[in-house]
Structure formats: structure tokens, C-alpha cells
């Protein structure tokens, strides 16, 4: 807990100002911490000019003094399903390459699946020095427990200092199991990764409180340092066929392949147009489209521009569009070349899911809508006036009705 040394405390209020959680108040010229609100983030300890604040208990190392130097190398968990790599795999390799170079160590990709061995080379082309291939018919389907045990087993043997995986449905399902088996730290949904200026710790930045705050997390007492990373926020390297690397086949012990779950079938749903997270153009409907009839125009515009259809939560909650279209904190993150929002007001929960877009166009009746703060081009106007005109013009331009 946070302990305030009342002898040293002068009641200056610096700690109160930096406390993100409103847990500190100055009472009778002394700092008082509400222990139920305090998250022990340590901001006050750092800010106190008198050195009067201390967080007790922080020096106990969970692993009981793990030898951090025994762990070296950066791993990226490749996601290969339905005959293709998830794009986040290449994005992770791009960042992993940079981290490995900073640490002067190797970048290893881990590829698990059935019949996946022949794809190992493409991971080398994208930046890996080594590929660990676990190829077994038992891995045909995604089995959370088997994937988790195999990865944890390999990590225990090879001792990488960093393991990165995509914050996809699959990554978010089994990577937490791996971190728990290894009893190490895991940071979810990172949007930024850097090596600390001193030492080898990984600084892992993620949105908190629905994107209102960015928190940088470290895991400085255990290894490996693990993070899942949001698709589409990191840059992949262009494939380089001249890159050389080593492919190592791993045969997992039979016991690791036993599962308590059985996948009867794996169904891919055919969505119209490109997958939202991979589309270069995303046309988004917000509450301001007002009438489900206008959704048809949103879809038509997306079709003309070979783009995907996105939605705010209000629109998917009203079931004007299916849930998979939802962009934002509890939906998907997109960063297309062009994002166009119609009747999107720009709640922070939505903005965090689209702010990485190259060009943002916003159309909204309300000139004070927060979406205009992030827009490249803003149009104050009624969606029902603008949208039909725009659909006509763009479909003409594209010679496509």
C-alpha cells in the first residue's frame, strides 16, 4: 500500500495532481490516500518532491529472484489459420526485428499448425532469423490448451526474453494461458513497444480507460515479457526473398497434444467485400444516419470503393448492422487509407478504433461533434443530404453503379 510519511509531507498537493485515479486528497495539509481507490500505480511516489511517499511491498520479486540474464531472444507467435497468415503476424515480425536489433539478439517466429512447415520461409522473408515449426495433424484445429502447453513448454526450454502475439481472438484466448503457466507478466492489446533506454526491459504501451489514457507497462522481475498487440497498428516489413534463416522442426511430446476440447467444425463466414480490419477504405455508419434505409447507401458507397462497412456501437446495438462491423474499444481496430464516418459523433471509445487511419472524413450535423477534432476533412451537414450526393458522384467517378 501507499505510505505517506507525515513528517516529510508538506501538503503541497503535487501527488493529488498527478493521481489519475483521484485517490489522493490533501486533508489538514497532509496527503491522504484512499486505499480502495488507489491502484498502486506509483505516480505519486515519483512526483513527491519531499520523498514522503513510498509504495510498500514492491520489492518482493514474484519469481523469487529469477535470473533474468538467462533469457535471451525475441519470439513472435505466428498465426496461421484457414490457409493464410493473419496480417498481424507480419506486423509483429516487423516490430520484433527492430526490438531484436536493439537488443542485439535473434528474432524467432513460432509456427504451430497442421501442414504449416512449407510456409516457414515466408516468416524469414518478413524478418525472422529462426522459425520453430510445430507441425502436427493434432494442430489442425485451434485447441486452446494444446497450443498453450506447447508454446509454454518451448519457452521454458529455449528461454526467450520477449514473446509477442496478435491480440486476435486466437491470441487473446491462449496467450493468457501461456503467461499463467509461465507465471509471468502479460500486457493485453498493446499499441506500442520499445526497449527501455537503459537495460533490456520492454516498455509496453496500451490504451486504458477506453483510450482516455495510455499506460506504459513493464515486467521487470520475471521473464519472458509477454504482450499481445493490436492488429494494424505496427508496420510489417516488405518481404525480402534474399533473407537467410534457419527452420527448426520441433516434435512436441505426446502428452502435450492431449486436449479436453474438441472442435467439430470451423466455419468461415463469407462477408461482403474485404475484411474490415484489412480494407483500404472503411465507410462507417454512426447513430446520425438516423434511418436504417441510409445503411443501404453506406453499403453501396463501400461497394463502389471496394471498401468495408463499419459501424459505431449504437448502430450495431440497434442491429442496423451486424456486430462484426463495430469499430472501437469493444469492436475492431481499423487503420485504412480512407475512413469516412457518416453521423459518427466521435465518442472516445470509437476514436481509439480508427484514429490510425490515413485520411479521416467526417460528416455530421453537429459542428461541435468531437469526431471533427480527428478529421482530415470535415463536413457539417445532414447525412441524408450529403450521402446520396456523394454516392452518386463517387460511383460515377469509378464508373461503377
Amino acid at each position: 500500500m501507499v505510505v505517506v510519511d507525515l513528517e516529510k509531507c508538506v501538503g503541497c498537493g503535487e501527488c493529488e495532481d498527478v493521481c489519475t485515479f483521484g485517490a489522493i486528497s490533501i486533508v489538514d495539509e497532509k496527503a491522504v490516500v484512499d486505499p480502495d481507490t488507489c491502484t498502486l500505480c506509483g505516480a505519486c511516489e515519483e512526483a513527491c518532491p519531499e520523498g514522503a511517499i513510498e509504495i510498500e511491498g514492491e520489492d518482493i520479486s514474484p519469481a523469487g529472484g529469477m535470473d533474468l540474464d538467462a533469457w535471451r531472444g525475441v519470439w513472435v507467435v505466428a498465426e496461421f489459420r484457414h490457409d493464410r497468415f493473419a496480417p498481424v503476424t507480419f506486423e509483429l515480425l516487423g516490430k520484433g526485428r527492430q526490438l531484436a536489433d536493439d537488443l542485439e539478439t535473434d528474432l524467432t517466429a513460432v509456427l504451430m499448425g497442421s501442414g504449416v512447415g512449407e510456409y516457414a520461409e515466408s516468416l524469414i522473408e518478413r524478418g525472422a532469423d529462426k522459425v520453430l515449426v510445430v507441425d502436427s495433424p493434432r494442430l489442425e484445429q485451434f485447441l486452446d490448451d494444446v497450443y498453450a502447453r506447447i508454446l509454454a513448454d518451448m519457452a521454458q526450454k529455449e528461454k526467450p526474453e520477449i514473446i509477442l502475439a496478435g491480440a486476435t481472438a486466437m491470441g487473446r484466448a491462449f496467450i493468457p494461458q501461456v503467461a499463467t503457466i509461465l507465471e509471468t507478466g502479460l500486457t493485453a492489446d498493446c499499441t506500442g513497444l520499445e526497449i527501455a533506454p537503459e537495460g533490456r526491459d520492454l516498455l509496453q504501451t496500451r490504451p486504458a480507460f477506453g483510450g482516455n489514457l495510455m499506460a506504459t507497462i513493464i515486467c521487470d522481475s520475471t521473464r519472458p515479457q509477454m504482450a499481445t498487440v493490436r492488429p494494424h497498428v505496427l508496420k510489417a516489413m516488405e518481404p525480402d526473398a534474399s533473407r537467410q534463416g534457419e527452420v527448426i522442426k520441433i516434435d512436441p511430446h505426446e502428452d502435450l497434444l492431449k486436449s479436453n476440447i474438441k472442435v467439430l467444425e470451423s466455419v468461415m463466414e463469407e462477408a461482403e467485400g474485404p475484411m474490415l480490419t484489412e480494407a483500404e477504405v472503411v465507410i462507417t455508419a454512426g447513430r446520425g444516419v438516423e434511418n436504417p434505409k441510409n445503411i443501404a447507401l453506406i453499403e453501396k458507397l463501400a461497394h463502389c470503393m471496394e471498401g468495408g462497412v463499419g459501424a459505431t456501437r449504437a448502430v450495431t446495438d440497434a442491429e442496423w448492422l451486424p456486430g462484426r462491423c463495430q469499430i472501437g474499444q469493444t469492436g475492431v481496430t481499423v487503420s485504412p487509407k480512407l475512413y469516412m464516418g457518416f453521423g459518427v459523433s466521435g465518442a472516445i471509445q470509437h476514436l481509439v478504433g480508427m484514429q490510425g487511419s490515413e485520411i479521416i472524413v467526417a460528416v455530421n450535423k453537429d459542428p461541435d461533434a468531437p469526431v471533427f477534432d480527428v478529421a482530415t476533412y470535415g463536413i457539417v451537414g445532414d447525412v441524408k443530404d450529403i450521402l446520396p450526393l456523394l454516392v452518386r458522384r463517387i460511383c460515377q467517378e469509378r464508373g461503377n453503379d
Partner: protein
Amino acid sequence: MDIVVCIKQVPDAASVKWDHKTGTLIRDGVQSVINPFDYNAIEAALSLRDELGGKVTAVTMGPPQAQDAIREAMSMGVDHGVVISDRAFAGADTLATTYTLSRAIRKLGSVDAVFCGKQAIDGDTAQVGPGLAVRLGLPCVTCVGEMEIMEGGAGLRVKRMCEQGYDVVEVGFPVLLTVLASLNTPRVPSLKGKMRARKADIPLWSAEDIGAQKDKIGLAGSPTKVFSTHIPKFEARREMLPGTAEEQVDALVDKLKEAGII
């Protein structure tokens, strides 16, 4: 059936206000509510009990006022509840949280099914469900969008939703599932349930009560730490396109042509 549902009290997203200048949460008037996805977990637990018999116990870790969350769950029909509460739990990350929850669930006795919401809306990590499954030695299926009981009641057949579709998964009891909002419609508390919940004795279990190791709970048991925080800055780059609707659309089309998009 011994069924456990894990719930979390979170700040009500609708009442949370944010001071963007100072980057602090304005806590005045912020209500604590049950995490939205946890209502679906409660409903899943109750519907399983209604089909197969048994009892449902709700577990939460938090300050003593988290009893309110347990009372609300009980008003919906949950049979028992417990709050794991100790100052020593403060600062817990997901690894310490799964340890703490697993100690409490083991203290409850045997378990056939554990339900969690897909994620909590304050942290959004979705890590506690799968981590808890490892702690309890249970198979885990995440992001469950549909659920039915297998013939003979030996397990569950569920749809695990992912980006492009879904998997149909069969899993025997005991099992841990994390559930989506689309799984079900949570029931409304009954008057009788509210009466029962109000009178219920909800125990508070301390670190000692659950036999927790000191170095595995709270800050000491949390390998991840907050290094720094900052407020995201959105790039101010807007150019408003003025005029009539026609003029605005013309201007936009020109801009998109310039950018090589159309």
C-alpha cells in the same frame, strides 16, 4: 452441478467523466456497476443450473462494497456469493487476480463449470478467464456466442466466435467459459430475489481465509507494473469543407482525387 460465476464491479461507463486537461478521472457521482459482460455470464450460469440442477455461487474480488454486486447477482437468482476482500490484494494484475480467484474457488469445493464475461470494460484485457482456467486445471473456451447442453448432460456444445466466423466446440465438464453479450439476454431480478438478496449474509474472505501466499497476491504477486501514463493527443489537422451540400461533396471528391483514392 456446482457452478461458479466470476464477476467484477467496474465504474459505470455512462457516469464516468474524464478531465482531458489533467488526465484524471472525475470520480464524483461515478456509480459502480457489474461489468456488462458479467450479466451474460450470470445468465449462462443460471440457465445451466435451471436445466441440470445444482447451485450457482458468484465470486468477486474487490473492496467490501463489492457486496452490492453480489447482492445484485443474487437478486437475479444466484444462490450464494462471496467477496474476496483484503487490502493485501490491492494493485493486483491479471496474474495475481487469477491466483486469488482460484484460491477462493478451491475453498468453495468441487466445481463443474465456471463462467466469466468476455472481458471487463475497465481493463479490457480478457486475460483473467483463460488464466483462471490454467490455475484451476480446467479446459477453457473463450468468446462463447452460443451454448447448448450435450446429450446426456456430460458437457457443453458451444460456438466460439472469432474474426471471420466461428468454431463449434464440444467440451466436457468441468469447464471454464468466457461469454459474449450475444450469448443470451440476462434475466431481470424478481421481487422475491431482491428480498432474498437484501437479507443474504455475504461473507468477506481475506487473504488468510483463502490461504493465499503473500508473494502471489496484490502488488507483490503482479509481474506487470505501470511504468508511466500519458494522455493521447489527437493530431489537430482538420479542414472543414464549407458551402452547400453540392459544394461540400464536390470539394470532398476533389480532395479524394488528389489523394489518389478515386
